[in-house]
């Protein structure tokens, strides 16, 4: 009786042990709580750089285009023979310091479009807060250069160039969609969708055209493609798979998403 009981306990505990070991032997990923960055005036360069590095590879979605592929300049290992971005950002635009240039490149990306690349980058104020953008600027400066971003830059709410971006940035300190319009055209323009898709002849043919999309794809497929664009590629655009950032689920409200889907599915 005792031996039988011990055997049963052994089987039960052994089975549980195998499952526990298995679950602990795979990659361990914890879902962190999104942090609303808030830097004081005395923030150090190291703090900014560390936060920026984290954002660059995660919430910023920067590596989707600036990482492995050729869809945007590689900022970390150099663009051809130019070297990493921190070493060349100060020379990119006459009259703009490194941090001014980087900041403007994130909030008005198509103004300083690098030759040979398409205007596909969205205004990062739509997905990142002011503090987050400045943290990424600091991280990029550190790539071959010196970090000059200070707490004063962040808390003044804009760049020294007075680009006008600061007002919009100040209103976008939290998580969520920056553009609250539910008009589909506002949403498409505001998120730079036409940087990659053609609508009524305008836009770039990097992704499938929006013209006639309703006759080719269902509402469910369009919705899934917006929210999880890396799942599958449309015919003829296999090479573009992975180019579209998977951030619109966070940026768009449910109403905005549905309005865009309805708008596109009616483009027949």
């Amino acid at each position: 009786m005792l031996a039988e009981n011990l055997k049963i306990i052994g089987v039960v505990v052994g089975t549980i042990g195998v499952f526990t070991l298995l679950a602990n032997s795979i990659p361990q990923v914890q879902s962190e709580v999104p942090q609303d960055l808030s830097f004081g005036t005395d923030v150090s360069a190291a703090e900014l750089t560390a936060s920026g590095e984290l954002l660059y590879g995660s919430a910023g979605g920067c590596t989707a285009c600036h990482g492995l592929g050729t869809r945007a300049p590689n900022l970390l290992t150099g663009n051809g023979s130019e070297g990493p971005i921190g070493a060349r950002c100060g020379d990119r635009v006459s009259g703009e310091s490194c941090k001014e240039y980087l900041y403007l490149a994130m909030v008005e990306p198509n103004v300083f479009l690098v030759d040979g690349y398409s205007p596909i980058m969205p205004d990062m104020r739509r997905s990142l807060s002011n503090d987050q953008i400045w943290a990424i600027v600091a991280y990029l400066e550190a790539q071959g250069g010196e970090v000059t971003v200070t707490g004063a830059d962040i808390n003044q709410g804009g760049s020294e160039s007075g680009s006008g971006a600061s007002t919009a940035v100040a209103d976008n300190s939290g998580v969520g969609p920056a553009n609250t319009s539910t008009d589909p055209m506002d949403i498409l323009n505001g998120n730079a969708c036409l940087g990659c898709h053609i609508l009524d002849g305008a836009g770039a043919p990097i992704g499938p055209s929006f013209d006639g999309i309703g006759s080719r794809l269902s509402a469910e497929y369009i919705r899934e493609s917006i929210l999880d664009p890396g799942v599958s590629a449309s015919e003829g655009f296999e090479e573009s798979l992975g180019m579209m950032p998977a951030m619109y689920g966070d940026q768009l409200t449910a109403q905005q998403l549905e309005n865009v889907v309805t708008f596109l599915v009616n483009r027949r």
Partner: protein
Amino acid sequence: MAILPMKINKTGRSGGGVICRRGLCWAALAVCGVLAQLAIPELLLAQATEGARQYGEFPLIGSRAAIWIAAQVHLLFAAFVLGVPMFAVVAEAVGIFGGDKKYDKLAKEFTRLLLVAYSATAIWGAILSFLLVTLYPGLWLYLVEIFAVSMWVYVGLFFFESFTLYLYYYGWDLWSTGRAKWVHWTLGIMLNVWGTLVMFIANSWLTYMMSPPADVTPDTAPGMVQFWSAFANATWMPINIHRIIANVVFGGAIVGAYAAYRFLVAKTDEERAHYDWMGYIGNLIAIGALIILPFAGYYLGREIYEFNQQMGITMMGGFMSWLWIIQAFLIGVLFLAGNYYLWVGMGRIPGAERFTPYTKYMLIVLVVGVMVWATPNSMIADREEIAAMGGTHHPFLGVLGVMSAKNTAVNLMILTTFLSFLLYRRANSRPTVDWARTATFVQGALFVISAIVVVFYGVYGYFVPAIVRIGFSVYQVLAVLATIVGVITIDVFMLRGAESRGDIQWGQMPPRSQYALFILAVTFTWLMGLMGFARSGIRQHWHVWEVMRDTSSEAATPALGYAAIVISGCVLIFFALVSFIFWLGGLAEKGSQVSSSKGEMSGHTEVAK
């Protein structure tokens, strides 16, 4: 509050038997707990207005682990006491309509297990409620503001359920014939109705946290939330359906483990034969319900995507992507253990030896199926690893990690398991109808055709867009279900009047087969814990999705390794307690079990059919 324990003690003293006193005592405690909490909102409201704390602290393991363990163990017991009445009442009906007393006895034994497990359910329900009030007062207050009415109904139904259970069990011998037996069976049905309603109400609270109505925002005062839209939220009914089926699976598995234990420690052949048969029934119920559970899971998953695609993506990909690999491994264990039990069981069936050569092929299909199902699709990898692989998918294994391959694998595994059951069922029968050979050929053709359909759509799925591919899974499932229904229908008619190759030698089962039943029960339990983590974890750092944020220091959703440790702790607690209460239950019926088993074992041959 001080008066309530005294009432409990008085109630306990006036009860009839040991089990009855315990049951009433703890049921009353649980109800008192809920009642007390419903009174507490006034205090909480006052606290909230004074800016009182939102979270409490639990020593050593922290508040999150404490509430997690309480909820999970409560749910495990609740699943058992909701699942078992379903097949208890079915077994009683088989006894009534078929006139076979052994089913009635089986139903009563199921219910006796239920009675003692009910006490533990109530205890853990009270623990969960008190921990919620003390550790998460802000969330509790919020939920009470919305669901207070349903909580009162819940308390009322809980009373009905408790006393219906006592009447059902203690009235078994009193109302055993004629019209009284029908009244007794109706009590069993009512027990299921009350239990299901209780579950539906509790499900509304937790599904609201997952999928609140679209018009509820962080600024919406809880008192302004419309009750019915919160109650019947987007994932409420899918969870209800999924849990009903899962409860049957779980109840069958635990009953199987109970029977296995009693088999292993049995002192007489009659006792061993009885529990061998009971273990077979438990396994049959568990595996039978398990086969349809994925369809309910698919419905739930689809509704989660419909509610919020980002939530769906979080569930199936991202930080939870590896969870599904673990799930595939667990379900693989279930299929293998369930089939192993059947194959070993064929050793006690005269005539089954003619099917033995086929088991190795079925084993190959199952093992390959598990391997394909457990192949990851896209993997969590850093930039260097992605560069080395040439993308987020492995160049070779990535082909097997997609839904086309996985759906094909799981459908073939279901077909194989069904084939195992069919061979077991037919092992000791020799059909006497003229058309038996043709019917067997048709059955074989159905298996082949459905396998071809499954493989065809699995391969074709690689060549079509995702939206088309998703639809293929429906054809695969329909082919498998049609085969199961068609083959069983033919079998029922074909085996009418069949000659027996010999009675099943109940009790002549090697002990190793019983350990398979333990593995099944442990794996089901662990799987429930894992799926509970998945369902709750997809809310991430929200108490109520995108409405009420978790601002505690434990708001991050833990990694799978930590979750596995907590789940294992819950499973160990559950099995330790369930062993104790089953032992306790065994004391109460000792001596009454075996006497009525004699002379019935010959009739068990028919049960296998």
